[in-house]
């Protein structure tokens, strides 16, 4: 399948979205654009590390801003007469990370890092009931290598072929979000995640680029009966594997050449029972990434191929206050053609067990145990260490997480969590941690985040 022309996927003029006049008059969104700008400017100035004593004053400023802005509620989106609807939504998250050892999203081990901002703006237009156009632009800051990432997250045309009370069938074309597991499609939105950091064993931020969205198409369908709701999605497209992170994830270091994605496939089958009391899903993908060398060996690797085929089983049990979630993945990685010592054929394993408890409309707590093994046959990483002379603890990560959330109102959220981690498999080589030998096996992480949405 050929790639779609770049013009379809280029960023829409941001000025049309950010004009407060347009926002107010068309969408009745009561967000003073100036205040949002102030927020962005305030956080823009505080790049890099910050001594811990300034943290309190920072939190105070953020707290005041929250109280001021929490007075604003979102008005309803206006529907136009011709039966078409236009909706706009967005989100802004500012995070703070503090680690005892190792670095994540900036210099988190030296007084903490504010180098974490996620912001997005999306729009959806349905000129007819069967046709919808939607797009989302993301801005992200996440430590070294991701200082000002602006990207088109999705830009698609959605056509519903068949639609009755019991059956639905449709197709999406363009840049579509990749559906796998329970959380991947909305992983950049704090409000849709159970914790500030998604379970890294399955939703690794290090491999984020490959799992975000792909240029191609997706067929979706749904069948509903008294027993529940069955859904399926089957997609084909080219993921976004050109980034350095992808190369680091596959090869472990930055070689002179570049990675590029080839046609890949994804599929997900879901089943909801009793209105979502029980949810299960089965996801799988076939991801093809190629390496294009820049120089001849031994200065560079040979042109190799990485085929990644994960399979993920997801299950969730939802009660009024309690939700239990678990996901288990087997991740097959087949690397060939890179050269001696780099080719491999391994199966990794990931799983997590999570419990969320909603005390009331405002307070929520979460506990999770998350496990990642790079290679099922080498769970303690010793074989890897013997072979590559690199620390064994980079091949696994076991994480106990405890977190709490406070919903001020529908639009504001404050979350805090603490991770006790054994293993450094999450750590992106090079970017924030230039030297792997300085990594520490046991490390703790504290993170705080404030989120706004409309």
């Amino acid at each position, binding site marked *: 399948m050929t790639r779609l022309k770049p013009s379809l996927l280029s960023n829409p003029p941001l000025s049309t979205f950010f004009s407060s006049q347009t926002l107010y008059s068309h969408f009745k969104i009561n967000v003073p654009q100036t205040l949002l700008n102030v927020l962005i400017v305030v956080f823009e100035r505080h790049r890099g590390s910050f001594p811990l004593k300034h943290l309190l004053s920072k939190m105070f400023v953020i707290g005041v801003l929250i109280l001021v802005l929490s007075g604003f509620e979102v*008005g*309803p989106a206006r529907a136009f007469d011709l*039966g078409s609807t236009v909706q706009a*939504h967005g989100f802004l998250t500012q995070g703070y990370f503090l680690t005892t050892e190792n670095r994540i999203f900036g210099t988190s081990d030296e007084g903490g890092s504010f180098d974490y901002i996620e912001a997005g703006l999306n729009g*959806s237009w349905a000129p007819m009931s069967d046709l919808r156009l939607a797009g989302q632009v993301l801005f992200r800051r996440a430590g070294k290598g991701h200082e000002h990432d602006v990207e088109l997250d999705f830009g698609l045309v959605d056509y*519903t072929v068949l*639609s*009755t009370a019991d059956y639905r069938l449709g197709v999406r074309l363009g840049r*579509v979000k990749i559906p796998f597991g329970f959380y991947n499609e909305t992983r950049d*939105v704090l409000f849709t995640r159970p914790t500030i950091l998604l379970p890294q064993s399955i939703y690794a931020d290090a491999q984020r680029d490959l799992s975000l969205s792909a240029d191609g198409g997706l067929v979706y369908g749904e069948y509903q009966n008294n027993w529940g709701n069955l859904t399926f999605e089957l997609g084909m497209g080219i993921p976004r594997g050109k980034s350095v992170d992808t190369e680091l994830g596959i090869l472990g270091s930055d070689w002179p050449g570049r990675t590029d994605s080839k046609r890949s496939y994804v599929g997900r089958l879901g089943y909801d029972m009793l209105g979502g009391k029980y949810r299960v899903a089965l996801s799988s993908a076939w991801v093809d990434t190629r390496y294009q060398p820049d120089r001849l060996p031994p200065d560079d690797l040979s042109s190799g191929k990485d085929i990644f085929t994960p399979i993920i089983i997801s299950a969730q049990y939802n009660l009024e206050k309690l939700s239990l979630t678990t996901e288990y993945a087997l991740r097959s990685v087949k690397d060939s053609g890179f050269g001696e010592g780099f080719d491999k054929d391994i199966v990794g394993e990931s799983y997590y067990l999570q419990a969320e408890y909603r005390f009331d409309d405002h307070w929520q707590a979460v506990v999770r145990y998350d496990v990642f093994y790079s290679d099922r046959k080498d769970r303690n990483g010793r074989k890897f260490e013997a072979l590559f002379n690199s620390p064994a603890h980079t091949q696994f990560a076991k994480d106990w997480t405890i977190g709490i959330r406070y919903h001020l109102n529908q639009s504001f959220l404050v979350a805090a969590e603490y991770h006790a981690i054994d293993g450094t498999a999450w750590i992106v080589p090079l970017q924030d941690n230039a030297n792997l030998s300085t990594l520490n096996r046991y490390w703790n992480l504290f993170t705080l985040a404030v989120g706004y949405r409309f």
Partner: protein
Amino acid sequence: MIKRYLKRLIIVLAYYLIGVLFPCAVAMPAENRPVVIVNSETVSKLLLSQNALSAIFGMRLRKWEDGSPIKVFVLPDDNLLHVEFSKYILHVFPYQLRAAWDRLVFSGTGEEPVKVMSEQQMRDLVGSTPGAIGYLRGSMIDDTVKAIAFE
């Protein structure tokens, strides 16, 4: 005086007894229970299946049988009528509805319902928007909207 207090005591006890035997009668008078409403002019349907109701408020079914678009209106997530509608008519908790709508909106796979701020606004909008559906307490229904039955 004692007679008056006795009378009141008997009324309270009777009310309590009825509440124990017939909890719905006391807890939710019929006219305050949420009722699914549609625009009376343009929506000809009189009966909806539970499937259709779930699919419509879940924003997965977007048009009526005649092909006209369905416009869904809801009250805020913490509104009492919304909570009752969600739990007793849709049989899901409000947080599940919110999670489902958020997934649609932030993945580009759908839209969320239009949020109204009051029951008055709900009635006004459902009554004036072609193909509209929402919910309202029974006592507030007027000519512009009609209650719809479901299995």
